């Protein structure tokens, strides 16, 4: 049915195009001059049919599920859902849906079978209605478009304003996405802060998000102090930068100043591979190779290293960031005007002195911008730490110890079945909100530094 609706729509689009084009051709054939080319008359019909109906169709499909769910749950016998939590209601709905698909476990209650039948009939009605609406709309629009064909009709202008509108819509999707992110985060974070005071979250030093599953269960009350979680992220990011910054900068210096053109042409793409490897691969690499290696090395010199030490996750993340920093630094060094380089060399400085005393200081703003972007990457990086870092939040800055990270907590809180009504799940959104704000600030700062610096020499 849904497929049929789409087929009808596309058929009507094509038909509208042909119809209007032919009509315009007929007018031209009779010797009258057309304002617009006949293909614009065709496109006019196609666009006026396709755009509105497609929007309606997509909205319908998106909303039908929600509406049918509501109707089905509303039609249950009175009192069935009294005193049930959202999780249990979801469970009943899921069972009704699976019965309607013919998947039946055990013997479900009678009301569920009836609800499943109603669910099927609602869905059938809705889809039939959708098809009918689409057919009616499409016919009306094709006819309306056909009636506008005339020698003086400014079809090109119409088509161009429609395409302009579409393009503006495309451009605003980026804004919608940002707005969507902010709304989702703010909404869920607000719910979280109604359960956990914001001061506890920001300044608390204990993160133990275990909460009782049943009301009568005796369990830890749960503590949501985010400080140790952020501390873990800082430890891991610091390790990553300690690896990435020197290696990345030295690489950039060598490639920019000392390497021959051929070496540069070979080495740069190979290094870029490091940044193209998916992070889940780095995560596996960390647990397969790096963590055991660090651990056995630590044991050989008598250090006590945790199996999922921050050092493993951090150093692998550092390797990932090397090409990021080196290409930023390389760009910044290349952007320093040739006159500075020539001037230093002409005064008798060695190439190393030119690099370290003239070019590098001149390129510092660009390099700092790149390093800041790397910091924001390291903070937001997820898979490496999810796989290689720990789960328990500790107030420690010892990189040999096992620490957790913000992204690790977000993922572990939300993996598996989630319901949006307990602080454990919602805490992930609060952490995500903090993460978003921090990375946003770093990014804006970094982009500003990079841009400002470019203006100086341009």
């Amino acid at each position, binding site marked *: 049915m849904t497929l049929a609706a789409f087929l009808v729509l596309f058929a009507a689009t094509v038909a509208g195009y042909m119809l209007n084009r032919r009509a315009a051709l007929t007018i031209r054939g009779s010797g009258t001059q057309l304002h617009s080319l006949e293909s614009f008359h065709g496109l006019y019909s196609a666009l006026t049919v396709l755009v509105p109906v497609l929007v309606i169709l997509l909205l319908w499909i998106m909303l039908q599920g*929600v509406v049918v769910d509501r109707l089905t749950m509303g039609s249950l016998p009175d009192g069935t859902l009294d005193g049930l939590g959202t999780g249990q209601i979801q469970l009943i709905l899921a069972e009704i849906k699976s019965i309607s698909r013919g998947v039946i476990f055990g013997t479900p209650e009678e009301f569920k079978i009836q609800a499943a039948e109603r669910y099927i009939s609602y869905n059938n009605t809705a889809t039939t209605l959708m098809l009918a609406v689409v057919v009616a709309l499409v016919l009306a629009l094709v006819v309306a478009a056909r009636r506008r064909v005339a020698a003086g009709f400014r079809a*090109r202008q119409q088509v161009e304003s429609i395409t302009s509108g579409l393009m503006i819509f495309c451009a605003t999707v980026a804004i919608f996405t940002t707005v969507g992110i902010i709304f*989702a985060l703010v909404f869920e974070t607000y719910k979280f802060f109604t359960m956990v005071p914001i001061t506890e979250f920001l300044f608390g030093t204990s993160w133990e998000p275990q909460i009782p599953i049943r009301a009568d269960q005796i369990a830890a009350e749960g503590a949501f102090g985010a400080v140790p979680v952020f501390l873990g992220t800082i430890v891991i990011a610091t390790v990553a930068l300690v690896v990435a910054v020197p290696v990345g900068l030295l690489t950039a210096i060598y490639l920019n100043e000392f390497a021959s053109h051929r070496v540069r042409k070979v080495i740069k793409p190979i*290094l870029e591979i*490091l940044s193209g490897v998916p992070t889940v691969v780095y995560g*596996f690499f960390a647990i397969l190779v790096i963590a055991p290696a660090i651990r056995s090395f630590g044991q050989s010199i008598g250090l006590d290293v945790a199996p999922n030490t921050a050092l493993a996750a951090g150093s692998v993340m550092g390797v990932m960031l090397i090409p990021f920093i080196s290409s930023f630094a390389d760009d910044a060094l290349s952007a320093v005007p040739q006159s500075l380089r020539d001037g230093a060399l002409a005064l008798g400085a060695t190439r190393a002195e030119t690099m370290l005393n003239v070019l590098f200081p001149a390129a510092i703003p660009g390099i700092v911008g790149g390093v800041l972007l790397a910091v924001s990457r390291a903070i937001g990086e997820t898979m490496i730490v999810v796989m290689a870092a720990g789960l328990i939040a500790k107030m420690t800055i010892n990189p040999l110890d096992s620490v957790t990270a913000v992204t690790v907590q*977000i993922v572990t809180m939300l993996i598996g079945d989630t319901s949006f009504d307990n602080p454990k799940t919602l805490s992930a959104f609060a952490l995500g909100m903090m993460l978003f704000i921090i*990375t946003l600030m770093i990014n804006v700062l970094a982009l500003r530094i990079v841009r400002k610096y470019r203006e100086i020499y341009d």
Partner: protein
Amino acid sequence: MTDFTTDPAGPRPVNATTEAVRNSLARRNRKQLWLQGFGIAAISFALMMLFILITSLVGSGYQAFTQTHVEIEVFVDPEEVPVENLPRGGFREVLSASMGQYFPDVDMTDRAAAREVSTILSNGAQFELRDMVVADPTLIGQTITLKVPTSDPYDQLAKGLVKRDTTEENRRLDDAAIERFDRLQELGLISKPLNTGLLSNADSRFPELAGLKGALVGSFWALLTCFVISFPLGIGAAIYLEEFAPKNRMSDFIEVNINNLAAVPSVVFGLLALSVFIGWFGMPRSAPFVGGLTLALMTLPTIIIATRAALKAVPPSIREAALGVGASKHQVVFHHVLPLAMPGILTGTIIGLAQALGETAPLLLIGMNAFITSAASSPFDSATALPTQIFIWADSPERGFVSRTSAAILVLLGFLITMNAVAIYLRQKFERKW
């Protein structure tokens, strides 16, 4: 410069500055050598890490491209598998009885011993036998030859990953098990063919049966959705911003937005998808469609930036010529500039899609790490994707999953390399110097 100190033309007039320069020159050159040395060391470090990464993955992954199989004669006993009960029946008992014929010294009436002997067969063997018999019930009462995977410990033994020289209590197989395996090997029943199951099976709890089909199909649907959404949206946005947008605060704001979106951590997109797409719009969990939608939002900035660069590279003379012969602004863009920019746009899009293929965190949050034993038949079915499958396998405790994970990574890297190679080919083939 070094010539300076060994100038054959004899002594020159020396003043204090020259003297100081001469004396310090060796030190300064040494400093330069140090800097170069550090640079080379840094590059070698990066290259070495890449080398270790690749070799360790290949080293642990290549084993998963073969799978140990055992070939056994099975008598499909009509008493255990009556025709009228199909598809139910005692297939496990049939297999265990047929294993008994190779080990006459084991008392097969002892249930524990019989079970011990059949552990060599994969748990999937009984289902394979069942499917064969259901497809052709005349097999009942006959003796058929069945080639099935061995279970994981024996697979590891055949590949030398279970070391025979470790003591019995530290080994996953006891001496008796190894002896039984060796007997089958002497009989020539053990073989190690190419592991086609790696690509043609869906996920499974048992490493010897687990394959990537579900993940490949899931990734395909997700990437298709991502492409269908982000490609037109990205091009539309880029054309507007590059060719039509007036320079005002609105278009500035859009630009800043796009640049920031490119740097938002991927896990935040996962939160967006979980809360908006699944929570508010009620889209299904674990569906590749939702994954593709999320990936589309993440890929959009990449495509927009690449498209703008490609449009910018088309020289103004083309635009002016088209305008000169009377084309409208839209006609100029859609008939002339866009086709010329297409190779660049496609290159950027493929690179964006390759990034999306490797993206894991947002897919984890929308539940594409579920355990699903069949491939999705539409983008709305539950599925996993390649990177999330790697994550699931990396988390699995069974030894056999270690090499499967590496193999899955090699498959993923294979796809990424192919996509990037296509992008580079497109760029080189169609790139124009104006």
